[in-house]
């Protein structure tokens, strides 16, 4: 890092690659594709000259790039069924060091989390993920995405409400149904 706060892409990668990877997962990029998309994000950051201090923090600067990458990637990947993609996420989630019971519970929670996040439209999802899962402030999120701060807040409020309802619907689900059938309930 130079004295002026500039971070080149290699330094950004060292510091924030994990952040970007988590962000991409929560934005719906399949785990098997994460490294490819992470590479795209940092390649773009490199071509942009790295990070220069400004209204956006390095994290929100990268998240704004990753948002575009995730959105594009998801469109390309929509030939896969939603259920298959979600199952893949569940199967790969978890920590091998955990007990089987805890591992299963975490998989279940992560599956529900991702399905509830999928109930959000991309504009709300990105704000929600950055705020609630990655601890960014609305000011920094707004700066990174190039939207007014009030808009960031209003999207976050709306996203929270939708997330609550979706999470409740999925948690109440007695057995695994198709995501669409549960999302129907979310809308009611």
């Amino acid at each position, binding site marked *: 890092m130079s004295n002026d706060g500039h971070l080149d892409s290699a330094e950004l990668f060292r510091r924030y690659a994990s952040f970007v990877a988590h962000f991409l997962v*929560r934005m719906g990029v399949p785990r098997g594709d*994460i490294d490819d998309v992470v590479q795209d994000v940092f390649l773009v950051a490199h071509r*942009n000259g790295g990070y220069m201090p400004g209204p956006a923090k390095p994290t929100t600067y990268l998240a704004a790039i990753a948002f575009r990458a995730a959105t594009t990637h998801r*469109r390309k990947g*929509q030939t896969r069924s939603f259920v298959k993609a979600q199952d893949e996420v569940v199967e790969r989630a978890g920590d091998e060091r955990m007990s089987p019971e805890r591992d299963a519970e975490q998989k279940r929670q992560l599956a529900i989390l991702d399905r509830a996040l999928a109930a959000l439209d*991309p504009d709300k999802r990105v704000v929600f993920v950055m705020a609630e899962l990655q601890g960014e402030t609305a000011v920094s999120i707004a*700066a990174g995405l*190039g939207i007014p701060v009030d808009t960031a*807040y209003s999207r976050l409020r709306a996203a929270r409400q939708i997330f609550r309802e979706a999470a409740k619907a999925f*948690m109440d689900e007695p057995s695994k149904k198709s995501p669409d059938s549960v999302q129907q309930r979310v809308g009611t």
Partner: protein
Amino acid sequence: MKNPQTPDTVSNATATDTPMWNDPSEPAYVRELLHAGRTEPLGYDVAQGLARHLANVQAGAPLPDWAQAAASAAGAGSSAWLSWLVLPVVAATAATGLWFATHAKHPAVVQSAPVVVAVAAPQPSAVAAPAPAVADVPAAPAIATTPAHSAASGLFAKQNRPAHKLARSADGPDSASAKQLDTTAGSKANMDATDRLMSAPIASHSVDHASAPVAAETKTAAHEETSAVAAPAQKTGTVSESRLEREMQMLAVAQRVLSSDPERALRLAQQGEREFPRTMFSAERQQLGLLAMVKLGRIDEARRIGAPFLAKYPNAPWSARLRRALATGRAD
């Protein structure tokens, strides 16, 4: 979340000050889900990823398609982080070009593909240069009520405008215009050959109800909308560009007036479906028409058309919103 820099948003800050995962007033399951997401051991190998990144940089790896034009715009002087807001436009343009190249039978339309591909090339001039033929399209009174939608300005010219203006000009501060373009580009994936919406519910609806007052008005107004924007040229390489621009303008206006004038929004959706059947924007346009129906109180009709539509597009970016609207009878 703390928001010390914006005293004018104190009420907002109060409403969102505490993260949900740490807010005792939130249901336990919400906090647990978010905690699971925050602490998930993803196990991404940073060292290995960094090695690959450095190799990519050293080898001069090309930018991903979605970033090429934006990088050019940024290189031409745009703010780098703002430039991401124009990406949906570029993505929609490139995707449309590919779609025309692979699906359209008219040879003149096929010729448009190289033009659109050139947009995605990383030369700044490819983005900076306005498309001359687009400038020949007369301004559209109905659409030109929004300054940003002067049909005389080409799509590429718009890309050179500050991104925040592009995002706000049509639909207000919520960047709905950019969102509109974003979601319409998203419907490209839904236009897979095996999954394309072969019938147009909204258009079918307008035929089914041709004698209804609204439908009759639609016919008249549709003529007005049609005459408002000159039909695009048919023999140049910019055919798809001008058609795309017109189609996008109609969509953007329909989106903008959805709340204030749902009747017009529905009319524009129907008109768009008749004029641009089975394009990459069809699904987006039809969901807009369904939302307009809900707003007009035509709930049963919207549900009847919307049920198979949602079954076909269960996970599009707008599906959840439409599903809620059909379920509650209220479009947010």
